[in-house]
């Protein structure tokens, strides 16, 4: 190993790769504080996030309506690159946002829908009710949250949908090992 040293970047060169080390350019923003420092930026941020929570229901309604619009376009025009992409994006956004907005079960149903769109060999062969039920469930969870008995009802609904979707995907991908592995692989997001 040889080393080339300059004022800012050090490069170690090997047979098939270089290791480039530069002094940490962000070091200047680190500050040592006492262990008993009372400033807690995470608590401050959580408080700020809680301050936004009054808007979450409205945001979630907008996201759910976007999903319904994407589904309506598919019912009208069928699956093509544009309609498929929009349905996936709308479901994917809900999957990512819903738990933050206080609708974790809607997020779980959206995740199940994403898996169908991503791993079904032919979307035209997916039972239309399966997609419609996911979208209806998300709408119900978002709009009827106050009427649904408890969060457990919404959770059970999402769980049932995921179970049915997984049975479909496992069967549909029985000859597609790459997809089957992805369908059966656990999520990296810790379970609640």
């Amino acid at each position, binding site marked *: 190993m040889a080393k080339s040293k300059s004022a800012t970047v050090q490069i170690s060169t090997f047979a*098939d790769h270089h290791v480039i080390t530069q002094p940490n350019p962000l070091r200047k923003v680190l500050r040592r504080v006492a262990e008993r420092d009372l400033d807690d930026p995470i608590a401050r941020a959580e408080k700020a996030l809680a301050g936004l929570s009054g808007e979450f229901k409205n945001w979630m309604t907008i996201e759910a309506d976007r999903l319904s619009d994407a589904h309506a376009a598919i019912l009208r025009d069928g699956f093509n690159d544009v309609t498929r992409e929009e349905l996936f994006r709308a479901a994917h956004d809900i999957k*990512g946002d819903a738990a933050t907005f206080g609708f974790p079960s809607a997020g779980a149903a959206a995740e199940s829908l994403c898996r169908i769109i991503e791993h079904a060999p032919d979307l035209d062969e997916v039972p239309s009710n399966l997609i419609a039920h996911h979208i209806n469930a998300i709408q119900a969870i978002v709009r009827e949250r106050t009427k649904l008995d408890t969060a457990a009802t919404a959770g059970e609904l999402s769980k049932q949908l995921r179970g049915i979707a997984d049975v479909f995907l496992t069967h549909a991908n029985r000859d597609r090992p790459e997809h089957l592995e992805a369908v059966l692989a656990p999520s990296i997001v810790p379970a609640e």
Partner: protein
Amino acid sequence: MFRIDFNKLRFLVCDDNPHMRRILRTLLHSFGAREVYESEDGATALEMYSHYVPDIVITDWSMPIFDGLELAQMIRQPDSKGNPYAPIIMLTGHSEKRRVTVARDAGVTEFLAKPISAKGLYQRILNVVANPRPFIKTKTYFGPDRRRNTTNTYIGPERRIGGEVEVMQQPSLLDKARSTV
């Protein structure tokens, strides 16, 4: 114990969802950040990256025009005039292990699966600020070292080859910056 002076950091946030951008902006501002630039697609983010020279990039994966993965690959061009070393935190709804691997191989520094939390975001930022990894350049990869741990007890094939070496001449970042002014 260390704290980050967020008011000295410049962030670029890239997400096509306006609600998520609002959440991120709120979190970063409450951490203490003042400079938070936002874009809703990868192409605009790349332009803003060149223009504002952010210290840290936080990007979604799925976006129109080009996505967060392509954005990371475009930033990680070792011969580009811009800074190819900026930490990139990928914040995404994708939560499959293979996605983490793909993001890592595109040069992403940290991966954060949604739903977002203040703690998760803070920890990723703290990690890129306090524990930067060296960069590795091969024929097919340029980005932060994909090995996070070193172990003397590792048993298995060695994928990096040592042996005869030659020194690669590369101007310092400072020289590079001067020559582009």
